[in-house]
């Protein structure tokens, strides 16, 4: 048994490594995939051949892709992710500054999304077609259909402009001032969270409707279980697998940042870094972000898989 488990675990790690390697390869090839000469685009048409050669050396254009990748990987293992082409700051330092910001934002957003979606979906699914369900389903649809920034602008208008209770943009680090940090967190987290909540609600509602039609739910009701207990203690867990996937991916992909929300609220996270890096063709930064965010997704997928086994004992047994 344990030998099998070990084999399965190593298989997993190997697969994760293969995924990351492929992504890193793609990221290394990025400058070559750009149309025209990235060097001339970055340095301007008046650049001297020496400047162009120096540039190509920095982005690893003049070597073979695999060699460039190998070089990058060995440096990365030693904590060196290169330097930004735009401001010469070490990429590792930049990421170290920004990852906590983005993670804080995304974790809060997931909590907001769950806090909204779970009760709404439970109530909707219990009486499908009822007034609450119709309002909730329509609301979720509107939020999903509207571009993300609309919600953000609306929140800024209400909370920052009209009521003047929260700052519209900017960021304060938690370590500098926890209260200000939270005040700056509210609007971007709500924007991200409510958008996610719409998707969460729809996913969970569909799954719950299926669960609630199962005979075991009727059986529990027949033993006198209250509706609230029935929903939270008996129906939620067997309905939660797709939601767990969504939350996992939500956190996993967060390392890529949300360009939209971070730009809108001037949050100094990965998303706004990516926005400037793309505009300035800052390949070392982009490359690092791509690999780090892929690692996040791989880790999240593993975590989701483990959680599945906790949530549904049949899965654990079937795959053992």
């Amino acid at each position, binding site marked *: 048994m344990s030998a099998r488990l070990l084999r399965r675990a190593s298989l997993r790690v190997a697969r994760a490594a293969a995924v990351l390697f492929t992504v890193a390869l793609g990221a290394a090839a990025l400058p070559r995939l750009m149309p025209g000469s990235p060097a001339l685009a970055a340095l301007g048409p008046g650049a001297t051949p020496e400047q162009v050669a120096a540039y190509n050396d920095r982005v690893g254009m003049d070597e073979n892709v695999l060699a460039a990748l190998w070089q990058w990987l060995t440096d990365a293992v030693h904590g060196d992710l290169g330097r930004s082409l735009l401001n010469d700051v070490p990429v590792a330092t930049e990421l170290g500054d920004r990852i906590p910001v983005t993670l804080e934002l995304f974790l809060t957003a997931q909590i907001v999304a769950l806090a909204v979606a779970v009760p709404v979906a439970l109530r909707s699914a*219990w*009486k*499908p*077609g009822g007034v609450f369900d119709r309002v909730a389903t329509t609301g979720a649809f509107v939020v999903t259909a509207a571009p993300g920034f609309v919600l953000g602008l609306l929140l800024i208008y209400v909370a920052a402009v009209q009521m003047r209770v929260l700052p519209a943009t900017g960021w304060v680090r938690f370590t500098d001032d926890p209260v200000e940090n939270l005040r700056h967190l509210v609007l971007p987290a709500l924007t991200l969270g409510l958008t996610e909540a719409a998707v969460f609600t729809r996913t969970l509602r569909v799954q719950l409707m299926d669960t*609630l*039609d*199962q*005979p*075991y*739910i*009727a*059986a*529990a*009701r*027949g*033993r*006198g*279980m*209250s509706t609230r*207990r029935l929903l939270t203690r*008996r129906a939620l*867990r*067997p309905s939660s697998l797709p939601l767990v996937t969504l939350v996992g991916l939500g956190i996993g992909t967060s390392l890529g940042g949300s360009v939209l929300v971070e730009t809108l609220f001037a949050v100094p996270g990965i998303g706004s870094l990516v926005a400037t890096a793309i505009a300035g063709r800052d390949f070392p930064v982009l490359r690092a972000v791509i690999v780090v965010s892929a690692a996040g997704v791989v880790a999240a997928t593993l975590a989701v898989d483990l959680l599945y086994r906790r*949530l*549904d*004992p*049949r899965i654990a*047994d079937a795959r053992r």
Partner: protein
Amino acid sequence: MTPPHIPVLDVRSLHTHIHTAGGPLHVLHGVSLTIDAGECLGVVGESGSGKSVLARTVLGVHGRTVRVENTGRVLLHGDDLLDIDPRQRRRRLGGGITMVHQDPMTSLNPVVRVVDQVTESLTNRTRMGRRERLRVATELLAAVDVPDPERRARAYPHELSGGLRQRVGIAAALAGDPALLLADEPTTALDVTVQRTVLDLMDRHRAARGLATLLITHDIGLLYGRAERIAVMYAGRIVETGPTEAVTGRPVHPYTVALLRSVPRVTGELRRVLPTIPGSPPDLALPIAGCPFAPRCERASAVCGTAPPPRVDVGEGHSAHCHHPVGRETTSTTASVVVPKPASAATGTVVEEAAP
């Protein structure tokens, strides 16, 4: 004077309508029945005759999106369940009334440990610690002959066999020490070899606890020696009811006769071909003027299509609703076939020969 006798369950002219997209469906048409403590009433009938709807209406739990309207009375120890508020009613679930479900594969929650499902009737009303739950569940599982009950209590349903799961279902039903047990085809989903032991188990607990039992089945043969009385359902009506020996030995309603004909007799020669009743039950959405069985009945006459059949009492609590009751031809206007049709004449299905 002796105090009035109050049965555990007393259903009086129960009419149930289920709201569907195509309008209300009149599923139960004036069902009346009683069950005493320790007594087993067997309810038989073809698929769609309303047996499950009857059980769900007595329990008061339909599908969450199903809207029903009831008239009549459902008295549990004399209290009308149709007349009390939902919270009061829910308090009786698990304790007063419980149900054993048809399919033990789907009626247990796959992600909840057996211990927590078995003790549900109790934990819905009072808080119980983890150890207490495990102790109670182990006792209950032992009482329904689950081997190694403590380990099984900690297991998840998928780790148990079908027979064990149905025992878990019965244990869950017994947990709240109920007065009335509704068993809706509790063994249909089980292997033939397991069916008997599960039914015997239910009999044992019925006798020991004085449990009133409503045993639903479409197999009348299963009720011999188990049910004191039988109610035969057809198209939402109880068409014949009485003591088991009377109903099976001297059936009065042609539908009962037809039902009995489709049961393999263990004694006597085994028949390879079982007749099924020709035709199909009526569409409940259409109104029925006379007897619902008339279109399929070999004794039917013109009156059967126009007037509701009268109640015929044949003594010792045995009665039927029929214009032309079997065995009482002297009173009926048509003297038609008394002897059941030979098997070869009826449409038949081949069944495996059961070992005697």
